[in-house]
């Protein structure tokens, strides 16, 4: 997650500006010409990165938008411009609608559960002096280092209908009535995918929140404890407002992971089945673009995904905007 790195470090951005300001201040003679030279040099240094960015990011993205107006199989020179036809067809496509619903469902459920559990665990780990918390942190973080294919293999074993971990545990607890065909039941399969997604990302977000909480000065908690605040009150009145910016950042990650991670996981774990019931937007796009030879149609789905992610991120960011609190 390259975006993650830059986003997390934004709080320290203001501090990072100081050293740049110092040398220019200590060189009063630097004239306009000199500065322009610097500018050219900086530009030259940036050029390789900019070229790469343009070639590998900007051009493909523009191409996705362009291709969504064409009917093209992917190989032939026979490319037909069909305007908005692809988008009009999307509205009638039941499979697409279902994939969209699944993506939104995953987005909401995975975000709420992961965020809730992540905050809860992070608060416990930082505020309560748990014995062996380093070990817990390590264990919870391990899944986010694993490759998604490994996770799919693990969950295929966990969710196995006959001798899987989940059904096995239920049998052990004499809860046989609760045993399910986790990957075969069309009503359940999406939640099985959601469980795997939460399991994968929980540790990552927990660590993010923990780092935010660790930077909150201890005095605030001591003072509030003297005023008689309970742990719960402290969490909602001190911890949550002070890591609010942190939370907003992670919400963007949630949108990305719901779109991207669900694709990889669905592809490796269920293949979109049974009968398309666990299809998500990206996996459906992939199927249309590459196995149904409808490249333009696939790209139209890509545009919808782009617009959707953009819109959701924007809305979430607007809705959660608060005056940043300082400590």
């Amino acid at each position, binding site marked *: 997650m390259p975006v993650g790195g830059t986003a997390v470090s934004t709080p320290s951005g203001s501090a990072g500006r100081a050293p740049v300001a110092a040398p220019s201040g200590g060189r009063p003679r630097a004239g306009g010409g000199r500065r322009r*030279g610097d500018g*050219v*040099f900086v530009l*030259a*240094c940036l*050029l*390789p990165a900019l*070229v*790469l960015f343009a*070639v590998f990011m900007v051009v493909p993205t523009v191409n996705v938008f362009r291709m969504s107006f064409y*009917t093209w*199989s*992917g*190989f*032939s020179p*026979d490319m037909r411009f069909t305007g908005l036809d*692809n988008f009009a*067809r*999307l509205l*009638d*496509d039941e*499979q*697409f609608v279902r994939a969209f619903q699944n993506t939104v469902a995953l987005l909401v459920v995975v975000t709420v559960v992961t965020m809730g559990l992540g905050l809860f665990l992070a608060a416990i780990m930082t505020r309560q002096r748990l014995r062996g918390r380093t070990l817990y942190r390590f264990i919870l973080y391990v899944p986010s280092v694993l490759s998604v294919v490994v996770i*799919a*293999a693990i969950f*295929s074993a966990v969710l*196995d*209908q*006959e001798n899987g971990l989940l059904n096995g545990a239920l049998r052990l607890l004499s809860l046989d009535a609760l045993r399910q*065909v*986790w*990957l*075969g*039941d*069309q009503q359940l399969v999406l939640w099985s995918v959601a469980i795997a997604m939460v399991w994968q990302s929980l540790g990552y977000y927990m660590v993010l929140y923990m780092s935010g909480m660790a930077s909150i000065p201890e005095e605030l908690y001591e003072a509030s404890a003297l005023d008689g605040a309970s742990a719960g009150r402290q969490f909602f009145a001190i911890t949550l407002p002070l890591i609010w910016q942190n939370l907003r950042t992670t919400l963007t990650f949630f949108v990305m992971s719901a779109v991207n991670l669900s694709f990889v996981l669905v592809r*490796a*774990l*269920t*293949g979109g*089945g*049974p*009968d*398309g*019931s666990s299809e998500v937007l990206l996996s459906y796009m992939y*199927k*249309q673009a*590459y*196995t*149904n*030879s*409808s490249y*333009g*149609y696939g790209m139209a789905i890509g545009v919808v995904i782009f617009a959707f992610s953009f819109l959701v991120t924007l809305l979430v960011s607007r809705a959660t905007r608060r005056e940043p609190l300082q400590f």
Partner: protein
Amino acid sequence: MRRSLVLAGAAVTALGLLTGCSAADGDGSASGGKTTLSVAALEGGYGRDMYAEVIQAYEAANPDVDVQLQISKSIEDEITPNMKAGRFPDVVVLGQGRKAALTETLVKDKALEDLTPVLKAKVPGEDKTVGDKLINGIVGNLNTNPYGTDQTYLMPMYYAPTGLVYNKGLFAQKGWKVPATWDEMFALGETAKKEKIALFTYPTAGYLDSFFFALLADVGGEQFYTDVMTYKQGVWQTPQARQVLDLTTRLLKYAAPTTVGYANEQDFTKNQQAVLDNKALFMPNGTWVVGEMADAPRADGFQWGLTPLPAVTPGGKRYITTSVESVWIPAAAKNKDAAKEFIAYLYSDAAAKIFAKSDAIQPIQGITSSLSGENAEFYKVYEDPSVAALVGGFAGTAPVAGVDIKATLFDTANSIISGDKTEDQWQAALNDASEKLRQAGG
């Protein structure tokens, strides 16, 4: 001065990055009078050694040809980037029915070279033409002539029967007879149920292709089968189509309860294991399953068996869906003539011998007599006079966005078993998809 040096350095770096991407283009195809033939092949269950051996033999016979082999288990992923950039391999060994559907895409695009002349060409070093050597009925169907014309675009490379795979040993132990009609099949289903054995399972719903193709032909004859494959108007509303769905729906009621839960890429071998463990009697599968499950544990006395689908009427004709790997030439290939000669050589006795060593059986007359083991058992199904080979698949059309009739026909089985869809919905969806494809193809 120094700054200009730095600038020049930066510019060189930037240019280097750009040119680095295109440096690999330079290899021409005819260097020093030698023709370079690029061959791309799917590394299937047969392995890669046989190709290396055949190419070696070919190069020995044709010193002026240099054959470059590219082989991979996901060959589509490796050749498509180059193809999109306009660099096509000369010969491609890749059948239809793969997930990436590269062959189907090129068929839909009419981007294949007409290989009818190869059929009439003599096999290098032999007297017979390629067409003479091939077994009857293997060319001239939708698999080789995808547009339903006399032109052959895909040459049949290897062929293998796909049918219902079962444990011969279990049938012998129980004294059961392999059902010859559907009535016997369902009667056996009841008998087996009492012994807690399911009648049917499938690895994934995609494996139902061989099942459906054969059943369509069994029920309505070859003409009806072709009608379905070419999306004839209203074909899914005919009584024959309904009978096919009726029989299937009834059979799916006997499916092993674990089938749907395991019918995915991750777990499909567990469904195959059910047959090895005597938990299910039949599954649609092909000869490759022997190798795929070679290391799997199995019930005592397990013995692979393969049978065509039961006949619809007693003594009726039964079809066995035959999977055929194809070899073809992209229309945009550079060395088409050399490529055609190479393909003709693939059918020579020398090449056939090398391929057969790796169990890759070519549709050449008289080849089955030289087989042994499970292969002999599997290819024996063609000897029954009431059994005929059925080749083909859905006809190529212009791509229709959002319509995938194979998914509609096969994957819905999952929903039929779980009760999420009814047979009527299935039939309606098939009719709808078929109609959309007909309009695109017409």
